Every structure is written in C-alpha cells, then in structure tokens.
C-alpha cells in the first residue's frame, strides 16, 4: 500500500495553474502559515484549487474543509489526511 503525499510544491503548482498569483505575492517564499486571503486568494480561487486537487488525486474534499483550512499548512494537512484514509492502488 502506497500513499501519495501532497506537498507545498504541489499546492503552489495547483494554485498557479488554477488561479495565478497576485502582484506582490511571492509564492516561493515562506507561505505555509500565511492566510490564503493575505495571499490574494478569495473563496472562488480556493474552490477552483480544491476541485483541481480532487481531480488530480482522485479524492473528494468536504465543502467545509476549504473554508476551514485557511492557510497552506492547514490545507496540505487536510489533503494528506484524505490521501492516507483513501489509499490509491499502487
């Protein structure tokens, strides 16, 4: 049984693909504990991000998760929890 890990780099890539990056925001910086709102992502951007994560990793995230996980660290942890609970076939 192998579980995939969802990393900060994965999140960065998906954020950029789905919602781009605001002027003056450096996604390559130390963003783990910066609130998504402060990074320039509103609820639609997070909705788009969530749906891209679901598509790519074959998981279904709770609707509440995207509003509750308001920093990259919280979202990454929540996604990894799902990935551990629903292991993919190797």
């Amino acid at each position, binding site marked *: 049984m192998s579980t995939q890990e969802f990393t900060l780099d994965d999140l960065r890539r998906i954020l950029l693909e789905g919602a*781009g990056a*605001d*002027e003056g925001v450096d996604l390559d910086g130390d963003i783990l504990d910066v609130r998504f709102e402060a990074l320039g992502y509103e609820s*639609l*951007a997070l909705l*788009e991000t969530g749906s891209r994560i679901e*598509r790519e990793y074959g998981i279904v995230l709770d609707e509440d998760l995207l509003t509750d996980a308001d920093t990259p660290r919280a979202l990454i942890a929540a996604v990894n929890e799902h990935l551990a609970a629903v292991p993919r076939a190797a």
Partner: protein
Amino acid sequence: MTTSVVVTGLGITAPNGLGTQDYWAATRTGKNGIGRVTRFDSSSYPATLAGEVPGFAAEELLPSRLLPQTDRMTRLALVAADWALADAGVDPENLAEYDMGVVTASSSGGFEFGQNELQKLWSQGSQYVSAYQSFAWFYAVNSGQISIRSGLKGPSGVIVSDEAGGLDALAQGRRLIRKGTRMIVSGGVDASICPWGWVAQLTAKRLSTSDEPSRAFLPFDADASGYVPGEGGAILIMESAESARERGARVYGEVAGYGATFDAAPGSDREPALRKAVEFALADAGIAPEDVDVVFADAAGVPELDRVEAQALVEVFGERGVPVTAPKTMTGRLYSGAGPLDVATALLAIEEGLIPPTVNVHPAEEYGLDLVVDQPRTAEVRTALVVARGYGGFNSAVVVRAAA
C-alpha cells in the same frame, strides 16, 4: 445649471491599433484592420473575416491572478481601463473611496471563456469546469473587474443594448456624475471571435460572406452586403468639468448631448426612430444641425439599414449637408465597443482638426451623403455627432464638442 461632463482619459484596443497613439496613427491614414479570422478556423463558416486586435499579450500587461478568471474581452477592457486612467493622470488610490464608479456596455459577455468551459463540461465532466465560469461570462464582468482592480466603489453597472450600448453607457456615466459622483470609468469592449460567438452572430444574417477584406464591409456603397464583426473598443474617463479644472487635467472634450429611441415592431408603418434620437441629442446639447462639423455614422453595411440612416441624416442636416465618416470600415463593427471608440475618435479628430476616412467605399449617389472617403479631410472640428444602432431596435446618438 446642469453639470458639464468631460472626457479626460482614453484607453483604446482596436483591430487597427493597440493604444491611442497607434490607433490614431492608423485611423487618420485609413489603415485597415480587417483580415481572415485567426482565433479559430473559420473556413467552414459562411463568414470568414473579422477585425481582430493584433499583438495583445495579456500575460505581459496583467497579473497572472487575473488570467484564469477572465475572457479575452475582459482582459482587453482591463488594459484599456489601465491606459485610460494613466492617460487621465488619475490614481484611484488618491481619490476618496466612493468618488469613482464604472459603467461599461456589453453585447455578448465572455463567449470564448464560456465556450471553453462548456466544452469541458460535456467532454470531461462538471468537475473540470472552472469555478470562474460563475462570473467570467457575465455582461457585467468588465465593470466588476475594472472596479475591483482599481478599487472603485462608486456607482457601477452595465448597459446591454447591442451596438447602441456603448453610447448608452456614456450617457449613464454622465447621469451619475450629474448626480454627484466625481468620476466614472465608462465605454465598452467586446470580443466574441470564437465558434460559439460566431454562430450567434451569424443568426442575425447581417454578416458579410465576402472573403476580400477590402470588399466585405461597404456601408453606403451600392455593393454593401453586410458587415464584418470586430473586437475591442474604448474605455473613457469621464468627470465633471469642475473636477477636471480643479486637478488641472487635460480635457479632450465635453459629452454635450445624448438621445436614445427604440424602433417600432417590425412590420409597423411607424417611421424608424433613428432621426428622433439624433434630434434629441442635438436638443440636449442645445445646438442646431448647422453647428455639427462631422457625423460618425453607425454604418450598418446592410442596404436597408444604410438607407434608414442616410435618410435620417439628410432629413436633419440636408442633402450633403454635413461631412459623414465611418472609420469602423477599418475595424469592423465592434458591438458595445463601437460607440465609445467612435467617441474617442471624434475627440481625436477635434484635437487634430482632421476627419478620418471611410475606407474602401464608393458612396451610392442615392443616399445624398457627403461621405469622407479614401483620404482624411482637414477641417476645423469643434462639434461631432456619433450615431450607434443596436440589433433589435436600439438607436442612440451622442454629441461631443471641444472643451469650452
């Protein structure tokens, strides 16, 4: 006394020029912007020509945050608004929060964005549809995105009346300024050159099926056979003359008069209402027909519509009573972008004292118009009338004049 409302900034994205300088350099000399459609393969469609805005690199002009959530028309509008604000010397950050609003016109919304998402819906499934489809196709999205980008919290909205809408938006902007808002970002930008937008436009049966760029759009010509659609338009900064004076702004001219009418139902024996719109605009400006130095025509390119417009102009101004021009022969018809672009062009004509030409057209004698063709005409231009008609019976007219 009613507040005088002036234009202090222009932002232009047009098929024959990107930016005011390029556009005017092209337009004053009659440079054509119509060609074969490049944004999709139009070869299997009855109409194959369009006026496309060339060389527009949105990724160099807008933050990447805005790209996944915007249709082409919105990207063009956002850049035009940035340019117009810069041209007016306005930094919204220095204004009070509610001092500036946005009223644009739209005729189709974001069709290309919508088409892409619908294709994903049917071919891949609903989870592949962008969350931004929820607003990216809206009629009001250009106003909304401009407002968000520049932090403009004053009264805002959108006007939808096909090609007349661009003038109607300027009129609404003027109304809001007269009610006390200091500045309004107005105008219109449309872009619907994609298969879905194309078939929607074809249903009106007014698109030219000619494949020769110089023969396809010939308003007021005996060979007129429809029009070529285009994309782009203009965003204008409007403010009270007093506000412009206070901040020492350069004034392009005054939006001095406006009139709008709606045609009777098809088959009615009532006369077309276009002449009334022109008369209302002149009356609103407090001027007589002989005060008008040039008319920017709607120039439908459809014989029966050309006849209606020519007749209205002859009734108001007399036979060959005023120079008439249609620079849109270089760009195609830009829907909601057409009126604002013609108003911007009229203001540039006033500034230079030069009427840009109608290209490719040999005017039919029967219309009785003094059409400025082939070459630009030097003339003292102080007052211009801009006419725009929208599909379904919309008629609008705006009078602009040199700053007092």
